[in-house]
């Protein structure tokens, strides 16, 4: 694939459309052509900013809309019933579980402060690597992992990277990083544990320093303890890849994130 062809398919690449073969060829070209890789990044960044403006400006209108009036006018009257004791019990248990989860990830594992996302993810990665935290869902099938996450997270996620990026998936789960919900995918690169964390892009509001860094450098790398980490924003996700392997290998996994369509 040459530069002209690659740039023709930018839309498909950006929207995670097209078949796996096309994405494989595009990824291959981007890895060998720095100019195109930069061009793709800039195009995607511009598109994301336009998208933010489209949603942001109309958000005021959206908050002014009175849905109770719309529902009543449409003949949809939600039946509001007092919760039964059973429901109340479930709610209380769920609340307690959420608090425990928050303490687990945001409190107990967080010596570096809530604003340090790199630190938070590194802590979770270490627990997963050491086996003290098992992913809720274990599978070596990227399709099954994709399906599991898509059905459980409230924000859009993309398909995990496949073996051709060097990443062998092992499982996935959900966690809370500071006050933000996150999905994580665990697996390995060259037999070494590697974790991928996916958060909604809006969660960057809680990590303003990181947001500024990513505005300057759309793909950023850092070192946290013994682990290398690379991170970037893809479409609606903030994606972090962390592991004790070379940064270039983590970058390859990061770039492959979401380049495959969801399973039908």
């Amino acid at each position, binding site marked *: 694939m040459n530069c002209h062809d690659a740039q023709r398919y930018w*839309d*498909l690449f950006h*929207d995670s*459309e097209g078949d796996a073969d096309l994405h494989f060829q595009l990824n291959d070209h981007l890895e060998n052509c720095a100019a195109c890789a930069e*061009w793709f990044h*800039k*195009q995607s*960044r*511009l*598109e994301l*900013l*336009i*998208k933010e*403006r*489209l*949603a*942001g*400006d*109309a*958000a005021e*209108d*959206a908050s002014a*809309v*009175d*849905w109770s*009036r*719309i*529902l009543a*006018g*449409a*003949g*949809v*009257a*939600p*039946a509001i019933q007092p919760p039964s004791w059973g429901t109340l019990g479930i709610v209380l248990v769920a609340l307690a579980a959420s608090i425990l989860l928050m303490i687990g990830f945001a409190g107990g594992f967080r010596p570096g402060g809530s604003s340090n996302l790199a630190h938070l993810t590194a802590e979770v990665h270490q627990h997963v690597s050491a086996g003290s935290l098992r992913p809720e869902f274990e599978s070596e099938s990227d399709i099954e992992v994709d399906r599991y996450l898509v059905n459980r997270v*409230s924000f*859009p996620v993309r398909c995990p990277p496949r073996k051709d990026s060097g990443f062998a998936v092992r499982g996935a789960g959900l966690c809370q990083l500071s006050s933000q919900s996150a999905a994580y995918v665990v697996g390995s690169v060259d037999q070494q544990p590697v974790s991928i964390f996916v958060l909604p892009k809006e969660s960057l509001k809680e990590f303003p320093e990181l947001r500024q860094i990513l*505005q300057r450098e759309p793909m950023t790398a850092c070192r946290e303890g013994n682990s290398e980490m690379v991170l970037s924003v893809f479409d*609606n996700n903030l994606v972090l890849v962390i592991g004790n392997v070379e940064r270039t290998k983590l970058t390859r996994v990061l770039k492959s994130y979401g380049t495959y*369509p*969801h399973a039908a």
Partner: protein
Amino acid sequence: MTQADRTKTERFVAHLEPLQRQLCVYCSRALNRRDESEDVLQSAVANAFRDFDKYAEGTNFKAWMYRYVTLEILNRNRASSRLTTSMGRYEPVHEPVLPLDSIRLETLLDAPEAVLDHCDDVVADCVRKLTEQERKILLLRAVGEFKYREIAEILDIPIGTVMGLLSRARNQLRTGLLDYGRDNGLLTEGDAT
């Protein structure tokens, strides 16, 4: 209200609630007249609720709901265009998309905030200038985050048309931003680094 009615209502509201905000944004952007959003949503919700028995649980409710909202927007925009065209002799002319000014596009890509931070209204105006179909496709992708196949199903058009019009709409938006940047001195050739 019978138990069955109550269950139907609860199920419908549970499906609808997570979509409320994005449906408002979609309406607000896709309508010729933004002040009609609430009316359009009410009609669309009423129609969808009437047909909710036909909805197969477990299938894509979001796409199903967007179809009703999109249809209502189409009807409303047709009515408002008839009103506008009947008042004058002029019809909107959709100019062909010209090739983008590559030098200024580079500048825009290098520092998009330089333009975008100054022109929320310009983005909205550019979207409004798109054809009805282009506007819906762009918004279904950007706001609804639908896949091309889903957009094709919602609008009942071929997937190739979705791809072509989305690409054209994105180009139009970039052209609008470049024009605004050039006219307001935000983009000059020298800015490119």
